[in-house]
């Protein structure tokens, strides 16, 4: 299979990689760019563990081809903290014990951040619908919803 050279932007930094035409963006992030925060839970769009944004849109990176990243702006979980300072969502997930094994957490954080950017004060049911494509097998969803709500409250007060 002929390799494709792709020039893109990841978390605000220019990035380049070579991939095969059938390689997904998730594979590229993890295996070619060393960004292993995005996880593969299912590979079929069902679990959301691979959530990233492409040109500002929340997507499953397992359902995007690496080649489609040409000229795009990608953000991943690795772009969420600023240096050592965790994003309020990250802090509240720790404080509210909204994770156990952590496999689902990067995807949920990326998805929740996208929600709060367009709706700074979501209701419980808005959070639940927005995160319906992010499955967690250990924590239980109440703690996750509560963490998103308390992070949102803190972000609104700043």
């Amino acid at each position, binding site marked *: *299979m*002929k390799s*494709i050279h792709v020039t893109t932007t990841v978390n605000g930094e220019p990035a380049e990689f070579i991939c095969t*035409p*059938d390689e*997904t963006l998730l594979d590229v992030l993890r295996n070619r760019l060393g960004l292993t925060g995005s996880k593969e839970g299912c*590979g*079929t*769009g*069902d679990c*959301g563990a691979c*959530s990233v944004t*492409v040109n500002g*849109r*929340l*997507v*499953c990176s*397992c*359902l*995007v*081809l690496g*080649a*489609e990243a*040409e000229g795009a702006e990608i953000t991943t979980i690795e772009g969420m903290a600023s240096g050592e300072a965790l994003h309020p969502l990250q802090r509240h997930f720790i404080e509210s014990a909204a994770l156990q094994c952590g496999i689902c957490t990067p995807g949920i954080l990326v*998805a929740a951040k*996208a*929600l709060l950017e367009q709706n700074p004060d979501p209701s419980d049911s808005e959070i639940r*619908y*927005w*995160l*319906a*494509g*992010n499955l967690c097998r250990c924590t239980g969803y109440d703690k996750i919803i509560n963490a998103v709500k308390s992070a949102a409250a803190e972000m609104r007060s700043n």
Partner: protein
Amino acid sequence: MRYIAAKTADEAAGLLVDEPGLARILAGGTDLLVQLKSGLVEPDLVVDIKNIPGIRDVTPENGGFRIGAAVSAAELGEHKGVLALWPGVVEGVELIGSTQVQGRATMVGNLCNGSPAGDAVPGLVAANATVRITGPGGSRDCPVLDIPAGPGKTTLAKGEIITSVFLPARPENASDAYLRFIPRTEMDIGVASAGVSLELAADGAISAARVALGAVAPKVLLVADAATAIVGSKLEDGALAALAKACEAACNPIDDKRGTIEFRTRTAGVLARRAALIAYQRAGGSK
């Protein structure tokens, strides 16, 4: 497999026609990538259409809207004009998958994937939407109803790609609605679904109707008898019962663990009745 991002619709059509092996169009990829990974399709060529100029635009046209084939469900849902004119079409599209899937999925992909349960399709058929097609023979328009050919199949010829969907203008007192039944509340495949589009006369009686059913036959159904059952009525109990009966009579569903034939048939009638009531209220009819 080769991947090419086509720069024009003609280039895409040319690439598809010239490909001796298996070729696939890539829009949002939420069906195609799942099929690639499972080995269900092994294309020699994938043509990405998202970089074709204009294919991600929504443009007002003759009182309606022309929606580019690569407009995502999320983008469509944010378009106030389309939502106001065709709320039933938009609510069908917005039922597809999760937030993440919405960020990529297109209604044309939903149509061309050929699933009898595609949630965008009954709303489009009820709306009498047409698609514009570019192919080796030039350009043509075709009603959405005539695109599906059975599970996983369309009537599109080799090299033909859909470039846009046209949702027509509608009179003042008109609206539409879409409902589906799934065993969960999110992220599941429809067991039965119904799209209903209505126009009302000045006195509130229905002057025109289109009723489409999903997931209850090998392809979407436009049920003329169901429309006849409610035209002239204000959705009185008798008219609603006749509507449901006509829908049940049209069903020819599969029988599986997600829904028996009896269940899918009954549910289709119930959903059509409820969708008609929602469309009627949206169109300004009081009940």
